[in-house]
Structure formats: C-alpha cells, structure tokens
C-alpha cells in the first residue's frame, strides 16, 4: 500500500523544480518565488518537515540538483537571473539558525540558466549547466572540501556545428514543410525544452544527454577530462523536438535506457546498447517505445526514471502523471496515471484521487 503525504504550501508561488537527494531523505524544492526549501524525511514515520527555507535568487529558480553525499550535502540551483549557485548545508548558524550557505555563485551564463546536473561522484565534483544562451558549461570544484572554488572547464555552444557529428542528420525540415501550410522563415525554430541528464554509470566516461529547443534531437555529449568534448550520438526526435530527457540508471543492464518527452505529446524510450568502452565507443540507439497517451499537442514536460530504471513517470500538459513499465516480454506499457489533485485548496483536502485507466 502506498502512504501518501502532502507538503502543504511549499512555496508562495509555483514550484518549478524539486529533487530528492541520493538517499531520498531530503527533498529540495524551488519556486517562482525565488526561494529554495529543503525538507527532511523522518526515516521511521515517513513524514516530511521543513528544514530550511531561504531566498536564493533574484528571479525564479529554474532547477535544482543534488551532489553526491560523498562531497557533503550540496545543492546547485539555477535561475533566470543568469546565475548558478551552489549551496552547502553546514552547521546551523548560531545567530540566524540558517544551515544552508551559498558557497559559490557562477555567473558565466549570458541567459537564464535553465538546468544543472552534478556528474556521478566518480568523476569528481563536477556540474554541468545549460543556459538559454545555448551554451553547456562544465564546472569543476577544485577544493571539494570547501566547495567554494569552481572552475569553468568547458563551454560548449550547443548550436556549434562541430557538435553535430557527421553521420547524424542535422537538417530537419522536410516533414515540417509538409504540415505547415505556409512555411514561414521561422519554421525551423521548431524546438523543445531545456534538459540534461547524466549517464549515472561511470564505465563509459562522463556522458550527458542534452536537449535544447533549437535542436530537434537529443545529443549525447562525452566530456572526457582531458580531451575535447564530443557529441557521440544524436537521436532525432521527430515532430516537435525533445522537451525533456532522462537517462535511466543502468543497474547492471546490458543496455542503457533514455526517455524523452516531446512537445508533440509523445513519450519515447530509446534503448542504447552499451558500447564497449574505450577508444571511439560506438553509441547507437534503437527506439523501444513511443506513446502518445498524453494527447496530441500536450507537450510532455518532464520524464523521470525511478531508482532502478524500471518505472518511468512522465508528466504532460494534460495534467497527468503517467507511469510506464516494461512487461515481462519487455514491451513497455502504460500503467495508468496518477492525478494527485485535491478538489480544493482546503487544508483538510488530503484525500488523493487515484485515477487509473486500464
């Protein structure tokens, strides 16, 4: 049975992102109200309580990412104010009682920073950010004990042609021209959202899957420490372009799973056979599933894998969170959806509505 809980009035405005830490015992939420809130769960009762809450940015916070606990309790937040900030949980300040200290503020981006993600722990304390200036930035923390010194290691213009590796299609218009009645000069601005997701396994080196609105494909970018970053694979996402991407934990499987939600309302799952690591690892992909349950035109804004990569949750503009799971014959199927809305904002409205379509 599931126990449900509600974290009431998490923010005074919309929540823009939320992330669990490595252990699932802390939850950080951020909102349009420019604040970050950290919640902790009582391991025995499962109840969540606010631990700290602070104004983090001068503009809506766009995303959050937890670092591996090996480096301390660290959260990175990105914001429309063009900064990425790194916060660390320290001992409560005697005067203010505040636990979270801003240890770094990275302001290289020339546009709103849209998302950030810490690399797997084995690669060191590294952070990748994606800003709306279309640049992917790789930061590395040099002194991981204090977490204060961050160096910009790579700046990668996602529009730059070198990223489009030769064999993958870069031109992406013909289908559009057919559907659009009068192809206007801007019709190539077809795009999706900003999203990045790390490969959680260290075996293949630091790899991150990225999608940006200007490119109708997901790109897998290999960021080796010494060499130039390289786009090792780009997966075209037809019609609408990718809106979000999520890389499943490998967990001993022989293939990687990559989920992608797109603006046209499709949830797609790609299977990436694990390449043999080493020189020129051959990444390839094959489509595994393509669902349009969210409804035509209901853009899918978030896809998330669970810990084991066995259940995919997707969330679309139809207001539903849909769950997907592979059957024993390895066919991915819809497992219904969850709408967790209460009918009113009433404090007593703790009931949950469980809607399932079979």
């Amino acid at each position: 049975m599931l126990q449900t809980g509600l974290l009431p009035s998490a923010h005074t405005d919309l929540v823009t992102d939320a992330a669990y830490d490595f252990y699932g015992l802390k939850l950080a939420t951020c909102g349009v109200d420019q604040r970050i809130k950290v919640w902790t769960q009582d391991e025995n009762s499962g109840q969540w309580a606010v631990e700290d809450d602070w104004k983090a940015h001068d503009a809506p916070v766009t995303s959050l990412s937890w670092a591996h606990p090996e480096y301390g309790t660290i959260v990175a937040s990105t914001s429309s104010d063009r900064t990425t900030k790194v916060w660390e949980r320290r001992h409560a300040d005697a005067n203010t009682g505040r636990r979270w200290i801003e240890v770094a503020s990275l302001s290289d981006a020339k546009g709103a920073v849209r998302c950030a993600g810490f690399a797997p722990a084995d690669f060191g304390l590294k952070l990748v950010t994606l800003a709306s200036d279309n640049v992917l930035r790789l930061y590395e923390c040099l002194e991981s004990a204090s977490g204060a010194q961050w160096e910009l290691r790579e700046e990668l213009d996602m529009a730059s042609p070198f990223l489009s590796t030769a064999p993958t299609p870069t031109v992406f218009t013909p289908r559009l021209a057919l559907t659009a009645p009068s192809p206007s000069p801007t019709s190539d601005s077809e795009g999706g959202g900003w999203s990045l997701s790390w490969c959680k396994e260290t075996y293949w080196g630091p790899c991150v899957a990225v999608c940006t609105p200007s490119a109708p494909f997901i790109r897998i970018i290999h960021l080796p420490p010494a060499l130039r970053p390289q786009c090792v694979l780009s997966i075209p996402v037809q019609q609408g372009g990718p809106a979000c991407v999520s890389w499943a934990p490998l967990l001993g499987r022989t293939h990687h799973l990559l989920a992608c939600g797109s603006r046209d309302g499709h949830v797609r799952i790609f299977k990436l056979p694990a390449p043999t690591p080493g020189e020129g690892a051959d990444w390839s992909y094959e489509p595994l599933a393509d669902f349009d349950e969210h409804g035509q035109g209901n853009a899918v804004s978030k896809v998330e894998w669970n810990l084991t990569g066995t259940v995919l949750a997707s969330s679309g503009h139809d207001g539903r969170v849909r769950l997907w799971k592979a059957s024993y014959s390895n066919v991915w199927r819809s497992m219904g959806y969850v709408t967790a809305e209460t009918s009113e904002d009433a404090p007593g409205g703790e009931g949950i509505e469980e809607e399932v379509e079979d």
Partner: protein
Amino acid sequence: MSRDRKISWNPRGEPQFIVSSSAQLALYAWDESAASISHVASTADLAGLRCFSWSPTESCDDLVAVGSDSGRVELHRLSLSAPLAANAGNALFPSAPVATFALRNAASGGTSRACNAVAFSSADPNLMACGMDKSKAAQGLVVWDIETELPALGIDVLPAHVTPLPRTSAQKSGDARIVQLHAPTEGVTSLSFLPHSSRLLTAAVNSRWMRLYDLRTAQSVNGTLPRQGLCKSISDVVVDPLDACRIASVGDDTVVRIWDCRNLALPMLTFSEREALGDGARARGGGAAVTGIEFSPSRRGLFASLERDASVVRFWDIVSGESVSAEHNITPDALPKRWRWASSSGDQESLQTSNTEDDRATLHLAETHKSRRFNRPLASFAFVPNQQTKHLVSVSRDGDIEFSVTPDPHLVAWSARGELGIELGRRWRVFQPVLGVDGQPRPWDTPAPTSEPALRINGSSKLPTTFGRGDDDGFPALPPAPHRLAPPRPQAQLYSPASIARIPLERGPGDATPRPSASAPLPEDTTSLHPTRFNAHFASPGRGMKVSHSRKASKSPAPRASSKSRVPSGQKSSVRVVRDDISVVMRRRVLRGYALGPESANFALNAAIAKDDPAGTDSHKLTALWKWMEHSRHLFPPGSSSCNGYDFAFRGVLAIWDGFEPTPVTTVPPPLPAEEQTSLLEALVDGTIQDSPPSMRSMHHQRSEDALDGGYASAVARVNSRRFRPRDLAMEKVMVATAKLEQRRLALAICGWDLDEMGLNDRIMEFEKAGSPTRAACWAMFSNQYAKALEILMVSTDERHRIMSGTLAALLPPNAERKPAKEHYERMIVRLEDPYLRVMMLYAALHDWEEIIREEVLPFDERLAIVLFFFDDRALSSYLRGRAEALRYTADLEGLILTGIATKAGADILDAYVDIAGDVQTAALLTSYVICPPERQRSVDASSDHTRDEERLFERAERWAEAYRTLLDSWRLFDYRCKFDIARGQLLSEALAARGGPAEAPYSWVPGQLRVRCNTCKKLLETGVEARNKGMQCPTCKKPFPRCVICMLALEVPAEDVRASNLGANSTPHDTVDDGFIFCSTCRHGGHARHVLEWFFGSSEGEDGSIAPEAEAHEVCAVGECDCRCADLF
C-alpha cells in the same frame, strides 16, 4: 451588427460572471463543487451596448457600467432588473433604476460619440473612467464620480473617496459628476486603472499611444504630457492584478507588448503567436487579430491571449529575470531561436528592447501552451481565479458557456526509496511505498542522550503495536515478531559494527536482523500498515466540464465515496506500479534478510523471502531457484564439492549431462594488491610457499590423489557413490536404457528427484497431503504403481478425480492396447483442466512423453526429472540443449537449473533477467556464489576462450555487485552492504581455496578503503605487522606517532589479532577499536577513538562495561583554536 459576446469574471473573485451579447447582460453564478452554472439575473434592451465594466465595489456585486454607441454610460444593477427581464412584456413594473452619464454638448463635441471603454478603479470604486471615440472638439477620456448616483440605485453604503482627486473646472465640463477630462481631440479605445490604484490610469490612445495618466494632476492639456509609449498599433490594454506595474497591450498588428508603467519608452517584451511555433501554432500570414488578452488574477506571470476565430486560448508564462547591466545585454542572437523576440520582421522596437535601461528587470517567455481545443470558435474568455490550474470560462460566438481547465504538467521526482513526488502548484504530494519492515534500529542510530535505557526497552516492546495490527485488507493482526524484541543495544556502541571484522555478524550486539534460519518467522510484510485515504474517483471535478447553456444540462460527476478499504481491484495499477516495483521489492528483501551467506539456511531464507514478492514478479521461479541452490549446496557442501578436479557446486543439469572441464588446478595465487603480490612472488621464488596454511596443503594432497583417477565419468560415479546408498533409485526400474546412467543419477540428484523407494513414496504422500492428489497419482503411475495411483484418485474428495480413475483404470496395462478410443482420449485430454490429469491421460492413453513435457504448468524440476527418467540418451541430450538454447535469452530464472549459473548460457539468462526485471540484487547474490575471478596469471600464455569467458563473467558479476552496493548505499543500508562484501569475500576466497590459491586473501575482494601512512617517513602502516612490537612509533622510522588531542599520549596501532580474543574471551570485553585513532578529515585533528567519541558524544563506556556518567558533549574540535565541527558528518 451583432457584437461579439464578452465575458467577464467578478472583479472581486466571487464565483460569478457576466456575459454580454448584442443588447443584453446576463449574470451567472458558478458552483464549483456541483460544477453547475445558474442564471442569476439579466438585463435586456441595452440598445447599442458597446462595452461594460463590473464595479468592484463591496457594497453590491451586481453594479455594472454599460457604455453604448451613443456615448451614454449607464449604471445598472442587474439583480434589480431581474423581475423586469422575467416579465419583459409586463409594462406595469417600473423600470429598473438606471443612472445615466452623458456628456453635454459642450463636452461631447457636438456630435454623439461612441463610448469605447469603461473602467472602475478597484481602489476607489466611485471612480469610473470612460474612453470615447475621437472628436475634434472634445476630450477622449472622461473620469466620472458616480457616488451621487448610488443611492438612486439602492446602494446604501457610500464608500468615501480614498484620496480626493483634483477636478477639472465645473464650468468647462458642465456636469458636476465629471472629475476630470483628458486626451483632447484623441480617441481612447481601451483603458484600465492600475490595480489598487485610484490615480493611475492606463489607456490606449489613438491606436498608437500607450499612455499612463496620473489623475493627481487634473490638467494635462497645457502641462507636461502624461507618460506614454509609442507603438505600431494598440487597441486593447489590460493590467496585471498581481503586478502593479505590468501592463499588456495588443493592437491590430497582433503583437502583444508587455510594458512596465514606470518606463513606457519601450515595451519590456513583445511577442506574437509566431513565438509559439514550437508549440504547434501556425504562423498565419501576418497573424490573426487578437481579440482578447488577460492576465491571470491568481497566478503570477500567466497571460492568455485569444485570436479572432480561434478555438484555443494560448497561455504564456512570463517570468522576470535578473536586472541586466549594460554589458550583459541580450542580443537577439544570444537568445534561443524559439524565444527570439519578434525581430525577424525587422521590427524596430523589438531590436531596441535589448538596449533597455540598466535597472530594469528583463522578462522572458518561459513557456507557452494552448488550452484544449473548443468545439467552436470562442468570442471571449475570462480567467476563473484558481491558484492550482489555468481555469477559464469562455463563451463561444453562439453563446455556449464553457468552463475548462488547462492542466499544468506536474513535476515528478522519484526518490531512492521508491517514493514518487508530484508537484501540485505550490504544494508537493508524495506517494511512499510503505515497507512495513522499516524502523529497525540501525547500528549507527545513536540513542537520544536524554532517553533512559528503560525507555528504550519499552520502546522496543511497544513496537508491535504499530505493526501488523490488522487492517481492512484482511491482514490478521500479527503476533509480535520475536526478533523485534531484540535486547536494547548497548548505548555506548556509537560507531558502526562494520569495523568489527572478526566477530561473526550474527552475534553483533546491535544486529536486529533475523538470524538466517529457516524456522525463524519472517518479519511480516505489513505493506498495508498505514490506513491510507484513497479517494478514488474517475473524473475529478472541474476537468473539462462542459455546461452548455442551451443544449446540455450539466452533468456533475459523482465523486465516489472515499473509502478507507482497498479500492476495488483493477483501478490501482498505477499504485501497484509504485508499490510493487523492483526497487521497493529489493529494499524490502534486504531488510527482511535476503542476503549472501554460505550456510544453506541462507538459501532457505532467501527462497522464503522471494516467495513473498508481490505478484507480477517472477517470485515463484525465484523461489524455485533459491530452493534449488539450497539443494545443490546441500549436495555439494563447500569444501567437498569437487571430485577429480571437477567442481560440482551449482552446476546445471546440462553441465552434468554433457560434462564440463575440470577446474584448473593451479598453484599460482590469484591477483593481489601490488605490495602483497611482490612479497608473494618473492616467497614463491624462495620456495617458502610450503608455509601455506595446513588446510591448503591437505587440499593439494587430496587433489593429487584425485587426479590419479581422472575422467569425468568416474568423477560423477564417485560423487554418486559418495551420495547414494547401495540400493538403486526407486524409479530406475522404469528408466529407459541409458549409456550414461551415472550422469542421469547425478542430474536427478540436482533436480531433487534422486529418490529411493521410501523417498518416492514419501513424496507421493506429500503431494497427496498437500492437496494435489493428481500429482501424487501421476508419480505413482510413472513409477508403475498403477494400483496406488488409482487408489489415490479414488479417495480424492473431488468427484472428477474419482471418475477419472475409472477411465485411467481402463487404459492402464494390460488393457492399454485399446487403440480405437485414442481419438476420444485426445479430445478428452484437451478438455482436462488439471495438468496432472492431462499428464496421466497422455501417459496412459497415448504414451506421449513429448506432449507431457510440454506441460509448462509442471514445475521445471519435475519436467526435468521426467525427461531424465524416460527419455533415451539422444532425446535427452537434444531436449536439454534445446531447452538451454531456448531459455538463453529469456529471463526465465528456472533455466539456470539447466544451465547452471557460472556458464555463458547461465549468465545470458541472468543478463536477460536483469534487463527485464531489473533485479540486480538477485543477480549479484547468485553470481557471488559461483563466479570466480579469472586467473590473470594464466591468461598470459593461454588466452583461451575459456579464460576470456571467465573474465567476462567475472566482470559482469563485478558490475552487478557494484550496482547492488550503490543501491544499498542509496538506501543507507551500509551495514548490509558491509555484510554483503564480507560474505562475498568469504565465498570468493573459498572458491579460490578450492582452486588452490591461498586460502586467505581477503583484501583483494573488498577494495581497501583507508590506508594509514606515517607522517614522517611516508611509509604505509600495515596493521598487524607491527602489532607485535607495541606500536607507539612508526615501525620504519621509529618516530613516535602523533599524540591524542585529548589525553596527549602518543597514538598506537592496535593489534588486529589481539582484538578478537579481547572481545571474546574476557568477561569484561575490551575492544581494541577503542584504542584506534580517528582523525577529522577537515581539520586533521584526532586522537584515540574512545576519547574523541567521548568528546563529541558525551557518554563513554567504563572499563567494566557500565555506562559512565554523562559527560558533556562538544560540538567543535578539542584543539584550542580549531572551530572545526568534526563530528557533524559522523
């Protein structure tokens, strides 16, 4: 000309709205809970209705100003005119009170001008502004004071003016009610007071100017001009109720402009439908006119626009960014294409946007999306105040009123505990799979310093009350599980027992996990522990509800009564997905004791745990596999599993039948860490390898003896002779003739079917007792005990069984030769439901073994037994190989019984299993039992396929183990991870020992996590080496070690081997770990473990084991100037 309908929501957010059509206004009330619309009042015969505005006054909620083509503005109270509307033909009723405002000739410019717009101030509801058509002789903007008219309209409460405004001279205006006149010779198409302001009025003037009037200055004719901004086209302005400065305008050029009233020089942001191309918007030629724009009254930055003739409303999320300094200006190129400001058409002003003033915040379009598509084109829409969703009320051109919710996508996140979190606007909802076995004390749980020991005992005995108390799901209340009443942990055990290397973990003081014993009751799975409130209904109210004014009655969805009990089956599959996912299952398994362990009890426990896996997983196969593992372990206990160099442990049936390569005998040790390697190599050269432990030597000895015999067949025979009593198997008299009897025997043993007469009869009895008489009868029949088979069927309680016995009796020898009835039997077999009855019929009537083993319902081991008994050698080989091949890429765990685990085929099955089921836990455990590290030393000369396969297998096993360790870490089950590593190390060294490597090489299996290096000479300190000389100094450079920061004595390296004896033998256990040293990795201060722990945690264990009086607990480092909080992360 019929005007478009307009819809307007109550300005104070009450659940009411007004719809206007060509000559009437209708007031409706909206009941959200019932999802119904009711008509409240309406007023008709409003000739020339052009615009209307709803007064925000608190005195009444039906005061409406109506502007008409003739230039008159009338104040109506809709509810007062209700009877009139109802009896339109009845002239007896007096007309509803109406207050009329019209400009006299002088002010009106001689001719009648239409009133384009009318607006109230929300801060001062007595102020009403009217925007008039252009006239050469008059002002386009009139501000009225309606206060004097209110009593006539039946409004008693007269709100006072908040701040009196200066008045235009009365002579000039000619009407005392006129407060101010503005915009001479100009036309005003739209106007609005800024929110909560009675003095700031924004207006669209002359289709060009975005103007902001400050009503505190009465005259603007000759004075300074009001603040204004020029744009290409402007016809409509709206203000943002949630942002006092934000104004949006739209004009005929279809471009929406967002302004900041503090600086109207340039719009903050301009966009048009073209910006939404990525969201499926069509770029029409030039775009269609925008007929409606509105800011959400409840959600910041949400803006909606409606194009003419469109049947969708488009939403825009506008977020403000950081204030931009000059050098940080956004150039259009730097922006992503999709959000490019409308610059492609060479629009001057949007290019200028990038040069805005420094201190202004920038705005972005964060997102855009559409409402759902309505059936017919919309005329107008309005936001329904609702913080959760984008709730709209809209009216189509035919007058259909429709409420629609455009849902927002919810954020979702998974936690490592399988918790699913879903964002709900401002809130966050979590779905937690309840394990029911949580909450056990963990080794590092430090008891709260204030709690008394007695309290803890009470606490633990109280536990069962929250545990298995029975619930609506039919779970009976459980007796308290014995292991829960584990004695309270000693208080001073502050650190992890993971460091207690030599103490068997089962005896660990804080170990609350069940002992792996088959009889121990499992901690009951109380997944349904917490009464949950599921409010199951299929249609949530407010979602796409359509109330069609003219045709359809509203159908309010009846929410199902919320039920505490289990929601009827079939609708909870998404819940089940979260609850029964393998990530949750694996964690529950660990907590219940699913683990690696050499004893056969472990296998039984694992099997029992796997059995409780939720339906939908491969639980019965997993159970069967663990039972088989147990059986195999029982057959070939560690240490005596090999014979003639053939290691039989966990071999599959196929391997037994086909034979396999003997375990390579080697004297070369396995890979070791570099330092040890060199020393061992030296030892080899010196010939000191003779000093290897006695156990190993004896093994060498034994092996050489074994090697004399050689040959797989004889090895099998020897194993069999070791195992079987002289008399033969019960079934052997019916077994087919075979050349490989010994292999068959052993294979049967592997399947658990190597039964003698007694054993077979016992098993038949077992089956019968277990309620499957057909199964019992079937095996009785196979073993030619026909009479017994029929007897079993006859005494069955099931009538069908008794009937079948007759049929079978007729068939069985010597009557079995009745061929004519064959077809009849075939038909009959198809119709039988009981698989064993089918099998019996197949056997008796048709004697068709091929068909029998195709009965997939039969347990795999049973089918294997049948094959082994009744298939001749060739058929048996081909069957086994065919099955192995067929199972290879399926995730069928039972296939492992056939293939064994440590084979390529077995690993392929496991691969497929992990791929599909994600159960890396089982894979990691299983492979840890069997897969040995490859012998790298050998591979130098022989890069044979075998070695490479072995290497690949080991690599895979390592990755599974690594993935499993990460899982355990993320569940904070560090102690279980340590146990896993320890057990794995034991098993691997066992395997190596069997192969002939050094029996003790534990270091290579668990990577060293910490090394101690001398501060002076930088030499590694190997624990144990220097233990013999009292280790207060570095054994290499003889320099003393650093001193403890508490007692100021030099530290020492405690002797590893003394510890076990200290702990075990003494009546007063003294743990040498207490004398070990610990350091803070931040400030590098440290000292004796017991001292430092006492410093930070306050309590310490006295020499006699008693708890010393509470000492003060410190937060910062003990070194004077150091303010490091060393223990924060402890």
